[in-house]
């Protein structure tokens, strides 16, 4: 298995521990990842609020880079994944539009997107291509007793037409991964609600209230930690916990590859787990050896 790795900005910025964990997981599972060093920011949905065609174009440029490499793209950010899927769907549904944007893209870069690249998040690749059975076989340190709340983030699930999850209102891809590493799935009512990250700047009060809803629900259901495939959700849910007044108890939040890496034998220090604001390293204490 070989993919072009689209890291997104956070994994090379404020969430470098995500990239560390991803590379460890890839190594342990035998997935070859080629870093797309030329790829730009996906626009995070924000550039689409400014200049939709330019936003589509920068993503089509990224797709064309993968086409040059002859590889499909793997993402490690739920937001990047959602944004890029939406661009792909527009291209699929509106060939004329795709042609127009390609023409612009070509002027600036000489590139064109042929429409042949698949974009999958790591958790989808594990679910659909690698397989949970195979993942379970590779586990060397079962996370037995660890109660994990799966938190997908909005971009992974909605709108349904741009979600790759088969039943987006009842997804299973994270749940099955949690079970495959020997941990226990905890579900809670607000598990599919927004983390509030997108409005952190314009409306911090609302943003943190949203984060509080998500976190408190998980705390009440007794989760030891959350796991998320989106580093932007991670930023809001982890970094801002000390500022959420309504928070009932602190709860660590793991990046999806961190959870896998722990079960595949990586140590908390290798994973830089203590870089999280809410100490994630501690949760390892609850794992029965």
């Amino acid at each position: 298995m070989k993919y072009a790795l689209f890291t997104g900005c956070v994994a090379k910025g404020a969430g470098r521990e995500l990239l560390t964990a991803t590379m460890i997981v890839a190594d342990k599972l035998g997935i070859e990842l080629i870093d797309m060093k030329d790829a730009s920011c996906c626009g995070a949905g924000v550039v689409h609020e400014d200049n939709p065609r330019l936003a589509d174009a920068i993503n089509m440029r990224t797709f064309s880079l993968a086409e040059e490499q002859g590889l499909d793209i793997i993402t490690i950010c739920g937001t990047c994944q959602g944004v890029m899927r939406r661009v792909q769907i527009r291209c699929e549904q509106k060939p004329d539009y795709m042609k127009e944007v390609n023409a612009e893209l070509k002027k600036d870069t000489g590139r064109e997107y042929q429409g042949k690249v698949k974009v999958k998040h790591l958790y989808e690749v594990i679910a659909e291509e690698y397989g949970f059975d195979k993942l379970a076989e590779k586990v060397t340190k079962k996370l037995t007793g660890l109660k994990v709340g799966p938190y997908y983030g909005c971009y992974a699930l909605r709108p349904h037409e741009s979600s790759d999850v088969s039943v987006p209102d009842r997804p299973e891809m994270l749940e099955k991964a949690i079970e495959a590493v020997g941990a226990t799935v905890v579900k809670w009512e607000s598990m599919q609600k927004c983390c509030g990250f997108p409005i952190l700047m314009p409306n911090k009060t609302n943003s943190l209230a949203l984060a509080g809803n998500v976190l408190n629900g998980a705390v009440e259901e007794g989760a030891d930690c959350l796991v998320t495939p989106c580093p932007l959700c991670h930023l809001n849910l982890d970094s801002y916990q000390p500022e959420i007044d309504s928070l009932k108890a602190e709860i660590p939040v793991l990046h999806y590859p961190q959870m896998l890496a722990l079960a595949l034998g990586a140590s908390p220090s290798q994973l830089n787990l203590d870089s999280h604001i809410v100490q994630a390293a501690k949760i390892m204490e609850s794992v029965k050896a």
Partner: protein
Amino acid sequence: MAVKFVIQRFDSEKDSAPRMEEFNLEIPKGATLLDCINLIKWEQDGTLTLRMSCRSAICGSCAMRVNGHARLACKTQAVDVVTDNKVVIAPLGNFPVIKDLVVDLEPFWASLERIDPWLKPNESVKWERERLQTHDDEKLIDDASTCILCASCYSDCNVMEVDKNYMGPATLAKAQRFVFDTRDVKTKERLDQLNELTGIWDCTHCAECSTRCPTDTKPLARITELKARSMEHGYSNSAGSRHVLAFRESIPGKYPGTGGGLINENYIPPRSLGFFNIPALIGILPVGIRMMIRGKMPPLLPHTIEKFDEIKRMFGRFKEYLK
């Protein structure tokens, strides 16, 4: 198919809290969810209370939460929402409940009225016949004009859960219908209002609205269009619009050190909040310090992609892409 319908019951005059009640029903072939709820009402318990009218997904009366999500009961084939032999039905969220599945919609109508939801044309130009509008211009408002005001979006809107002052998705979609109507001349006034707090920039992109919308209105898409139109008009008076500008500047590295194809995460917050917005900047200090302590601060100099010049060229032709 024999199915258990678990329906939330509540009488705001008598009950202190809602309760769930189970009804067993054999779903007739081809029955909609509304058919089933009516069968329960008519054959099992006449006190079960809901709104309904057209049966054909155009009046918006029978919106309710099915298995936790808003949808029109009439537009739903009952067998499609059965899971584990069960359907869970509750009233719309984000509203006070009056009785069973009937909620108090007044906040919804009140929100709608905030944006002056009627056409404001240029009254000084007299048209003898209809005003002209191209097919393409009509298309710009076609989707928003399919809204049936069922309030499904309002029900499931995540922001509305934490802030009842937020305008909400249906209202913003309705605003798009006027801002983008070539016959309406109050674009600036409308955009001014939408760029204030509780307007477009308070949307958190959870996409619940578009996901639950039973029509082509798809409010999130309309809100995104309103944001883009605001940016075209040069709005920068909100952290939301400046956040967009921050991306516009950071990705192509408009100023030295602001970005390199990827964004510079150190640049985004102060640019969004305003470099001279001291209270807000002080507000983000704690998280900055926390991240610094954990070694989580992004590198001061941004990561630069290899063929950065391509991205610079693309953003350099920003306006051409806008067409």
